[in-house]
């Protein structure tokens, strides 16, 4: 890691994560249960410490597709939330160069009672776009999502696939420098998956940085420039996607047998 940070000048770096640790204090008591509180009141003050990430360091370069892989519970989601600034690290520093659009779950801020049009503006503004910009791009967003007939329909009347398409279109248009994608490649039907994959490739061609968390190893092998394997809350390997994926399979087999 220290080698990475010195090797790349800051204008080539999109994201730098240095020695980041994130722990949570999880209450020992489920204090929604009064009976439990009365029988063992000392538990009210007891917290179990759980470290989801320990001394994680890596650097993502500009224009790179960087894949983060690992088993469930390895800390991938925590890492993404740290990058999205939802959580703050306990130790270490995260540095982000440029505008980052997180895509942790499709349709951040969507409200079922609002129409498609209203949701586009709400979602877009949260992602940091201005109203004028959204007005300009509105038709394009709707067209990309293929929702021309549903513009003034409340979102709750849309199918889940349609919502995903809408969310993807908005994020795709958000003009960020770094995109953070969490398993979004697995949604939508085959045709839309292909469409969104093309969209991602176009972003990449324009020099945007893409950080993606996925369990789709084919995607990692085919599209990522580098990959990071998170294993038991620590960085296990960073390197060429093929090698990292192979390492991941090897570790999984070892732990099974």
């Amino acid at each position, binding site marked *: 890691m220290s080698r990475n940070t010195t090797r790349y000048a800051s204008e080539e770096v999109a994201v730098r994560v240095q020695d980041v640790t994130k722990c*949570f204090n999880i209450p020992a008591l489920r204090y929604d249960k009064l009976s439990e509180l009365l029988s063992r009141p000392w538990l009210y003050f007891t917290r179990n410490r759980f470290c989801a990430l320990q001394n994680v360091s890596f650097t993502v370069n500009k224009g790179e597709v960087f894949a983060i892989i690992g088993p469930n519970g390895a800390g991938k989601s925590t890492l993404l939330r740290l990058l999205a600034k939802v959580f703050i690290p306990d130790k270490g520093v995260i540095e982000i160069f440029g505008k*980052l659009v997180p895509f942790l*779950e499709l349709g951040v801020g969507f409200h079922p009672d609002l129409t498609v049009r209203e949701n586009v503006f709400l979602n877009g503004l949260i992602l940091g776009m201005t109203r004028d910009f959204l007005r300009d791009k509105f038709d394009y967003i709707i067209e990309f999502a293929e929702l021309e007939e549903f513009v003034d329909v409340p979102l709750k009347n849309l199918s889940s696939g349609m919502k995903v398409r809408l969310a993807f279109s908005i994020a795709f248009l958000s003009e960020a420098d770094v995109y953070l994608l969490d398993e979004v490649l697995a949604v939508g039907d085959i045709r839309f998956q292909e469409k969104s994959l093309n969209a991602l490739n176009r972003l990449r061609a324009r020099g945007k940085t893409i950080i993606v968390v996925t369990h789709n190893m084919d995607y990692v092998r085919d599209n990522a420039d580098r990959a990071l394997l998170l294993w038991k809350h620590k960085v296990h390997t960073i390197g060429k996607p093929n090698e990292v994926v192979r390492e991941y399979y090897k570790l999984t087999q070892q732990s099974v047998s």
Partner: protein
Amino acid sequence: MRKIRVIVHYNRSLRNYLELIWEFFINDFKIRYKKSLLGVLWAVIRPLLQFYVLYNIWTYFGHAKPGHAYYILAGIMVYNIFSETLVYSMSALLNKSHIILKIYFPREAVVFGASLVAQINFFFNMLVLLGLLVLSGNSVMNAVSFVVHVFAAGEVAYFGALGLGVWLSIWYVRFRDLNHLVQLFLYLLFWLIPVMYPLDLIKNSQLFPVVVHNPLTWVVLFFKDGLTSGHYHWVLLARALLVFVVIFMLGMLSFKRRIAYVAEYY
């Protein structure tokens, strides 16, 4: 001061920030009245009914002079904007947890946006007040002047409630008991401002000091004699504003200190 652990070399534009507050406000407003038949008419019905019942009871007991009817009505409206602002802004972070847990944006936008919904109700309240004043034979000049002063008082009350709401919003995410506590506080507060009774009446009560030193009391006393004598007690309003500015600043300070960790409180 904590060490800065996340450095983002990018700034959201001020324009986007203001538009975001506005968007939260509009959407909260739309959602609040989405499936409601009478919609914003409730902002008219509620103070009128409140006024009708309370005023009738109080005249029956012989404590309210007829000239004070509009003071009582205006007092209720100022109290209403205070309580609505406090409740809306306090619960904003909790209501928007589904967004806050997934993406970063300036969190206070949610609180400010939610609090503005109370302004709409207050605006309609002011229309009701103006209408009643004119219909009951006051000169238009007098009526407008009174309503403008009540409006100023309402905005000061709004500011105070927002300060409290910003401060409590983070704590509310952690301790849901606050909901009950604040409901109780607001109920008591209604009787700790001299709206439903003249201040002289409780001179010998133990609670008198509480009522007299309550900033919201100053806010309503500011326009108490406005309609009858044309005199407004600006000193009282300024004093209340000063207290509220301090509360707001302390609230924002506490908010800024904790907000980065709010996602862990849910």
